[in-house]
């Protein structure tokens, strides 16, 4: 699929620029329309499992609700207290509602942009591309890749430690306090094991001739093609067009902390 084949660095750049653009705007309509655009784009041009997608979006829904009520409850005194909206039993100043919705939809737009990136990008490809396109030092890039490779190993080690503890009589528990204590018992051996492994890996890398020099060749090459730039331009054009629509509808406003 098209989104999966884009250069990961340019994809990340596009998302970051779009997020900064959205952060400068503070109205409810622009981010709402832009989220819809992003979701449609993700499903049209990417192979994304809709169940997982919704699962990732769910926490944002929950925090949005938290945001919504606190914004209404704790916001500054409105400038036009006369304009109010009836919501169930309460009478709430219109300004507060608009501010709260702006905040919530903005977070929603950030989330959809991020999911577009996460669901279509391979971690290893992203690091390799950062090294080849963004001058990330190879020492750091391969160090991180080695560290990332440890994750599944650590999961095994975690199970091992847990079993070892149980053999020695540590009981399973459902109490919060007890399980915090148990996590403390896991954390140190787990970290110690990881550090030992990391040290050995570093020695192995050096003994096989890894110097960390920038002048090196790559097995997997990543390049920037014109399609990557087209993606960047299309996304930003969409953002500007949506901001224009919002302006026509009379909602658009810049973010300058005025609320």
């Amino acid at each position, binding site marked *: 699929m098209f989104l999966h084949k884009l250069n990961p660095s340019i994809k990340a750049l596009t998302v970051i620029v779009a*997020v900064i653009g959205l*952060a400068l705007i503070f109205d409810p309509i622009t981010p709402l329309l832009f989220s819809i655009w992003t979701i449609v784009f993700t499903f049209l041009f990417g192979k994304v499992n809709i169940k997982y997608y919704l699962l990732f*979006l769910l926490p944002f829904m929950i925090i949005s609700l*938290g945001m919504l009520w606190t914004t209404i409850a704790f916001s500054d005194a409105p400038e036009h207290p006369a304009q109010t909206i009836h919501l169930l039993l309460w009478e709430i100043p219109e300004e507060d509602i608009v501010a709260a919705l702006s905040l919530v939809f903005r977070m929603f737009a*950030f989330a959809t942009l991020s999911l577009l990136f996460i669901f279509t990008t391979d971690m290893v490809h992203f690091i390799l591309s950062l090294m080849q396109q963004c001058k990330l030092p190879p*020492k750091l890039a391969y160090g991180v890749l080695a560290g990332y490779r440890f994750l599944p190993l650590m999961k095994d080690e975690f199970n091992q430690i847990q079993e070892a503890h149980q053999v020695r009589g540590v009981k399973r528990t459902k109490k919060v306090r007890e399980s915090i204590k148990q996590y403390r018992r896991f954390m140190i*051996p787990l970290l110690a094991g990881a550090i030992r492994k990391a040290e050995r890996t*570093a020695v192995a890398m050096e003994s096989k001739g890894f110097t960390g020099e920038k002048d090196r060749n790559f097995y997997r090459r990543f390049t920037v093609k014109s399609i990557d730039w087209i993606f960047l331009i299309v996304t930003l054009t969409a953002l500007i067009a949506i901001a224009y629509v919002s302006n026509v509808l009379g909602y658009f406003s810049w973010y300058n902390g005025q609320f």
Partner: protein
Amino acid sequence: MGLHNWKLKEIVVMSVLSVVFAVVYLAFLPVGKLLAGLFGPIGYDLIFGIWFIVSIVAAYIIRKKGAAFLSETIAATVEMLLGNAMGPILILTGIIQGLGAEAAFAVTRYKSYNLAVLMLAGVGAAVFSFVWGYFRSGYAVFGTGYILSMLVVRMISGALISGVLGKAISDALAKTGVLTGFALGKEQRRKKAA
């Protein structure tokens, strides 16, 4: 970033710490969300120190210029790739929080790593992250009193969770003897010998 005076093993160990704490960061996200759902955005600030902890641990163990900054940046990047829905913007967040912690060590010219400096690093990260959050998440919609209390709570959380707890974890690790090849392990051996 003066990576030239870093040993490869220090870089790999820092990366591993970052990856481990990226998982911890991700695991605490639902906790933060739950607290934020209950108390509003200030719920996050109660445990915000958790998200700076790798800076303090890495800097305290390795004691090289850039350790606090790099480890936090890597942790944020890995956290994003593991599935934090904040996406690439999280890298920027990590960079800013890392700079906040790094600033505290830079002020002491990377010479002192006592508890006070580590707590200061936690506070530094808290302040930097708060300024960033102010613009990114639009805290300006809240009243001044609420904003100030958010900041204070986050600073305390940074000092206690990342400063005190970060030091405790590192010291416990040094006791196991795996850090003999690193600055913290060497310091502890010298102390024992004395």
